[in-house]
């Protein structure tokens, strides 16, 4: 071997020597050592924006906040029914307008301070303060005068319908009945924040202060923050001051921001994670075949659909929209393309949203689709003009769009141009209604059909279709003022029937949550909101 060869081989040899050394050292995987120490290793998609429950809006953030804070109620992971949280019980007046929460006298913040009703008042005032710019402030709009305070119509917080007669009693006065109120209260926007900590690092409405850093953050949840390294790890450990700490089985949770789902899947395979946030669609078949015990496909309260710009020709014609919907073979999409257990959307609201289900209305019928298109005046003598199908850049959206393009071409002879745009450009296009047809998805924050149906009212912020129907608006309004479940659902059914007859949105499929779960994780119950309270989780 000459000098040049030696020079070249040096780094290669170094690599193998180091690797050999590592191999000789016995390696226990984080998953195995985690089972022994009660440490859960959690794949959590992305780096959280922040850990302020009143600022953040994403799912990865919620996964961490669930460990650090506790709302008045928590949701039963199996049934999504409300269970006592920071409040040990509550009373509701017969008209459903006043909720009185009785807080636990044993509830403590992670520094040992008692959790008081006034802390909740402070928190509600904070999220509703206009200067905080909280995107989820609207989640509290059910409270009397909350919207008015948030939009600066009133400036006196004492006029907002919340009060604390004593340290353990919190009274919430609603402007009108909100039958899903307890489900709403479990959302992180309702979590309390520690007033002294907030005021130590800024004012009540200071956005982005340092109060959420390790060492500063004080929460009232089952775990407390110990470490936060950006893009690397967030660690929490059992909070000894939590009122129910003796029931907490986990000692620590490590959250890893693994943005790439292929990387996350490999980390799971090599024993670095107990749970992943996702599973790449191309891996589903392999896991189904080879490791079904770790594959989880849970229903999810979300709908994937196409928005239709009803102000644009030829999509302003309802028969055209109906023809387009009838010519989508949804079952073929979910069975042959998506393969993740997704359910073909036969209506708009996913089944069993807060106990509500709508009868199957959306069908696949190419003969009827062709007839409707002809009725709309399109045929060999008057060919259908080309329309654009917009989606944000993503392989899965692209595949679905391609399949739908083919279906519309095959069954209706329609030419569709596919257009993908980068996320923010696509958002701007849909907001400005600068599209013909655009893909969209909606995942609910609470377990109620209202989340899926009230967005299509005239002028609704998320109604980017230009569609308006006064009968629909009236029905949604009627549903919002009654506390009777049957009457409410009756209004929703009528409203959904109008929506699916007019089709400003074409439902495609209902989401599922596909992920990997190590068999050692116990108490991880599938549910529609993907909520998993860590106090019920153990490692065995």
């Amino acid at each position, binding site marked *: 071997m*000459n*000098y*040049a*060869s030696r*020079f*070249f*081989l*040096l*780094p290669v040899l170094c*690599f193998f020597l*180091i*690797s050999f050394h*590592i*191999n000789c050292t016995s390696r226990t995987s984080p998953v195995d050592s985690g089972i022994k120490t009660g440490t859960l290793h959690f794949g959590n998609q992305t*780096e959280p*924006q*922040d*850990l*302020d429950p009143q600022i953040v*809006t994403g799912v990865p953030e919620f996964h961490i906040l669930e460990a650090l804070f506790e709302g008045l109620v928590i949701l039963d992971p199996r049934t999504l029914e409300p269970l006592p949280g920071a409040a040990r019980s509550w009373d509701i007046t017969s008209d459903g307008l006043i909720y009185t929460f009785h807080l636990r006298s044993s509830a403590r913040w992670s520094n040992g301070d008692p959790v008081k009703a006034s802390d909740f008042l402070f928190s509600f005032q904070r999220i509703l303060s*206009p*200067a*905080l*710019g*909280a*995107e989820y*402030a*609207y989640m509290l709009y059910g409270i009397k005068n909350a919207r008015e305070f948030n*939009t*600066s119509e009133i400036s006196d917080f004492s006029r907002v319908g919340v009060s604390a007669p004593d340290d353990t009693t919190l009274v919430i006065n609603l402007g009108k009945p909100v039958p899903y109120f307890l489900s709403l209260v479990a959302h992180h926007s309702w979590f309390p924040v520690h007033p002294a900590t907030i005021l130590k690092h800024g004012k009540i409405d200071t*956005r*982005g*202060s*340092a109060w959420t*850093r390790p060492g500063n953050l004080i929460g009232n949840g089952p775990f407390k923050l110990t470490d936060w*390294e*950006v*893009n*690397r790890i967030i660690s929490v450990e059992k909070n000894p001051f939590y009122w129910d700490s003796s029931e907490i089985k986990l000692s620590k949770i490590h959250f*890893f*921001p*693994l*943005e*790439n789902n*292929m*990387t996350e899947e*490999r*980390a799971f*395979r*090599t024993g*670095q994670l107990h749970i992943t946030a996702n599973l790449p669609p191309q891996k589903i078949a392999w896991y189904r075949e080879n490791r079904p015990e770790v594959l989880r496909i849970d229903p999810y309260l979300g709908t994937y659909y196409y928005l239709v710009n009803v102000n644009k020709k030829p999509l302003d014609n309802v028969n055209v929209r109906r023809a387009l919907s009838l010519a989508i073979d949804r079952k073929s999409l979910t069975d042959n393309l998506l393969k993740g257990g997704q359910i073909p959307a036969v209506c708009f609201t996913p089944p069993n949203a807060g106990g509500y289900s709508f009868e199957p209305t959306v069908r696949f019928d190419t003969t009827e689709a062709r007839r409707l298109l002809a009725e709309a005046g399109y045929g060999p003598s008057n060919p259908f003009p080309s329309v654009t199908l917009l989606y944000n850049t993503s392989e899965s959206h692209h595949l679905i769009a391609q399949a739908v393009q083919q279906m519309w071409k095959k069954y209706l002879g329609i030419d569709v141009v596919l257009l993908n745009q980068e*996320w*923010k*450009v696509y*958002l*701007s296009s849909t*907001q400005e209604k600068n599209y013909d047809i655009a893909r*969209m*998805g909606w995942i609910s924050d609470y377990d109620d059909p209202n989340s899926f149906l009230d967005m299509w009212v005239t002028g609704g*912020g998320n109604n980017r279709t230009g569609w308006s129907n006064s009968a629909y608006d009236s029905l949604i309004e009627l549903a919002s003022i009654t506390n009777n479940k049957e009457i409410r659902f009756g209004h929703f059914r009528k409203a959904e029937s109008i929506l699916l007859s007019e089709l400003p949105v074409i439902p495609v499929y209902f989401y599922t949550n596909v992920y990997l779960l190590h068999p050692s994780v116990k108490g991880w119950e599938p549910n529609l909101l993907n909520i998993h309270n860590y106090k019920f989780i153990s490692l065995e």
Partner: protein
Amino acid sequence: MITFITRRLFFQTVPSLFLIVTVAFFLIRLAPGGPFASEKSISPEVLKQLNTHYGLDKPILVQYTDYLKNVVRGDLGPSFKYPGRNVTELIAEAFPVSLELGVYALLFAILAGIGAGLLAASKPGGARDYLSTILSTSGICIPSFVLGPLLVLLFGLKLGLVNVSGWSSASDRILPSLSLGMVYVAYIARLTRGGLLETMVQDYIRTARAKGIPESTVMIKHALRGALLPVVSFLGPAAAGLITGSFVVETIFSIPGLGRFFVTAAFNRDYTMIMGTVIFYAIVIIFFNTLVDITQALLDPRLRSKLNEKA
């Protein structure tokens, strides 16, 4: 030399940075969709508050002059995406990771690249030359997003030697460094080979050989020094690129480096973060280019005298 550096700083660096900041500032504002655009609609009142909070409600020229003033003071502003963090802090946390990864990748690239170049040039046209050429070309052709997962598959999943992702243990540095450095190995090998072949026919090499100096000494001590000039020129921008992070490698291996911010900041329209990363990258590039000029002067006496003349 000091005059040269001073001139470089005041007449080239400052105007370049000013130009970069100005162009980047206005370019990112032209992109559709703002930092607060989201799938779920934000109420006009909240949007107004957010714009006021970050000063986006002011006229664009006022925003620009405010930003320039803050930059001069060393304040890169708060991140729009991460409300509790400011840009300087995020860069300060992520850069050491990218720097560490970049240094390992660079060391690997230099050692393996020069080694492969020597191997190839020691017998031009021979089997070693072809082998080295094949390896180099493969290195250039295989992008890191292919090489990374392949290395993970072999050393992480099949052999179980290293973790497949993360940045905790010492072994976590191996695969990312190889993935990142491999393409530079190839370039350095080609440049070293070319430089050596050119230098080996020079008169002073013949003189050295005539003196009876062993071939290995001739090559490494005499020829390599001259042959490395193009490598050094290449290493300037390459090092800047390596130490400021790679989006692809950092994503594949889940490394908390700076590379990810370059791309995600643009996707998120995190204006201050985009500006921060652009300014930081520009400074690093300018620094390394200056370093290259100085190193070249140290390696080549002809350049040194020219540089002094210029100064």
